[in-house]
């Protein structure tokens, strides 16, 4: 079966050990997590893990169920790119002396990048976008001599009108009241 890039959104309680509880479900199958972002979400007290991973759909569906089985995990969702809006951010550090001798303005404009800091020795650019866009800028800056580069994991919102976990939480609170 063909592998593709999946995005998994995991909503959890804000506790220690959650990262371990989630990552062990991947490592058990020797699945390599491609990227990982953890932050608060729009619901107070709920944390959101956004994980990307190359695998097959049956494998990912089962991983999601086993993640969800963990007591402190509220809900997990398997998403494909068509269901989400997503971005990554990247930082590029290049020597300032090589920047001044190129058409850097054109590069920055064309790629929608911005300059974060200019230091006598180095200049740092920032670019937000999809992986391929970030790597395109990387290719343009490479001849200048990239000294440092970092790309974040995905941040994702879904094309649904609310957080995907809302319905589940409402159901649970109703059960509590009953």
């Amino acid at each position, binding site marked *: 079966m063909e592998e593709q890039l999946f995005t998994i959104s995991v909503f959890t309680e804000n506790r220690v050990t959650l990262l*371990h509880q989630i990552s*062990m479900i991947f490592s058990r199958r020797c699945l390599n997590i491609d990227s990982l972002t953890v932050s608060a979400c729009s619901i107070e007290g709920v944390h959101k893990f956004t994980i990307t991973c190359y695998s097959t759909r049956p494998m990912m*569906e089962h991983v999601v169920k086993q993640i969800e089985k963990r007591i402190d995990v509220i809900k997990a969702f398997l998403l494909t790119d068509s269901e989400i809006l997503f971005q990554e951010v990247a930082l590029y550090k290049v020597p300032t002396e090589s920047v001044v001798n190129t058409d850097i303005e054109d590069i920055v404009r064309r790629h929608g990048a911005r300059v974060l800091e200019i230091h006598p020795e180095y200049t740092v650019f920032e670019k937000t976008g999809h992986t391929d866009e970030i790597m395109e800028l990387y290719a343009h800056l490479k001849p200048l001599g990239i000294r440092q580069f970092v790309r974040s994991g995905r941040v994702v919102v879904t094309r649904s009108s609310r957080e995907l976990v809302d319905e589940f939480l409402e159901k649970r609170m109703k059960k509590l009241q009953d």
Partner: protein
Amino acid sequence: MEEMITGSEILIRSLADNGADCMFGYPGGQIMPVYDKIYNNLYGVRHYLARHEQGAIHAAEGYARATGKTGVVVTTSGPGAMNLLTGLADALMDSTPIVAISGQVGCSMLGKDAFQESDVISSVLPVTKWALQVRRAEDIAPAISRAFFIANSGRPGPVVIDLARDAQIGTAAYEKQEAPFIRSYDSDPEPEEGAIEEAARLLNAAERPLVLAGHGIMISGAEKALAELVEKAGLPVGCTMLGLSGIPSDHPQYVGMLGMHGNLGPNINTNRADVILAVGMRFDDRVTGDVRKYAPDAKIIHIDIDASEFDKMIKCDLHVHSDAKKALEALLPLAERKDRKAWRASFDKHRKIEEERVMARELACNAPDGKMLMGGVVRKVCEAFGNDAIVVTDVGQNQMFAVKYSRFNKSRSLISSGGLGTMGYGLPAAIGAKIGEPERPVVLFCGDGGLQMTIEELGMIMEYGVDVKIVLLNNNFLGNVRQWQHLFFSGRYSSTPMVNPDFRMLAGAYGIGAADVADASQLDAAIGEMKAHKGAFLLNVNIDETDMVFPMTPGGNGVDEILLNESEYYKPV
């Protein structure tokens, strides 16, 4: 002002308030404040001193499996906690409710490689349902309440509370806890709308339906609902190994055990059924054989409380996400009354062949040199106890013969390590079962290999006078591995012959009654002696090492591709 008590006392009080009447454990440096309270015998929670932490947790498992209550284990930090890992993994696989309390070094020493420090939470997460480190006395009561709730609700499992020294020696007021509400955890899911109706429709339309009953029957207390449903709708029912005793062995609709060493009828007819109703079972690979050849003609309905089991091994046609009891009770009024006599009778044909071709030899129990066969010994022992004993097994051939040749009248009568297949489980689990159910006879069937893995727990029998009847099926071999070596490794018996101690003398050293049964002619009298003996007894039975477990579905075969003996496949008519 409210009385301030230490965290250690809060712990014991919390255990009592959550229904614990005993715990199994082993003291050590970082749990001493708790043991200081155990010394006072507070709140009616008795403590049983195991001889090894692994023994303690298997005893707690046996207690939990026999009673349905949560088994409690207490250990020290570091090595004490690490010795729990096998038992935790076992309990997770077999859905056994356990709360394990491990001592931990003081908070200021965490992460500094302190003496007997280990990263307990990280180590146990993959083998527990939930785990939490508690660092303050005031957090103990809520943590214990949550631990018991999680361990023994939904699909039960083991929980670890790692209790830092600060929490044990700190003080707080004790507050009795309400039953916790955990928003992220729905312990009692409702079946999807229409799922029960659809299940009834499939069942009612079936001509060759088969029920596969698992451990979930007993965990949810669905024994009565299962019996009523299969009687009303004329459904044949087979049990997984852990599902055995969920329905009496002599129930007219019961057709045998499923799986690699199961009975011919239910395995053959799995692949002839047109509808399968799988209840509280998880299509373990030992049940299914090659999944690509499994139940090709059947619509499969899967009832389970654990949604992660759906479509994991076998793609099913209908999922009912609920505990077994709730689902079966809802299904009962919708099921049409049918007798399905011809289909039910088709199982008997296979049973008869199995009785003649496989079981008759075992039950005759005669091998060269007066040696005995395991199946016959098991049947005689069980009958001596009126088929009312709690049967505990170790792992291996002893286990397969014990589960196949025992008969069960009552629920929760088989305690065996299923998913993990943990050798050494049997002796401590039998001790825990007897402590949990003191009125019921407890019989342990074990091999010479498994018994020696946790034989130190004879000490617990001696100290507490636990009346466990130990039937040692002794072939001086690791018999199951030997069987596989014989069948699949050209009879090269690598590291499977065992040089054994004198087990009768060993039992004697612990003050336990014992008898050697060297010859088949002595067996009946020896069983009688064991039964009449007040207190624990070890029967050391001289088993023929060439005895092998059949029928057998070798790995990679379909569920209906079954060996009757080492060279002949069963060819059903």
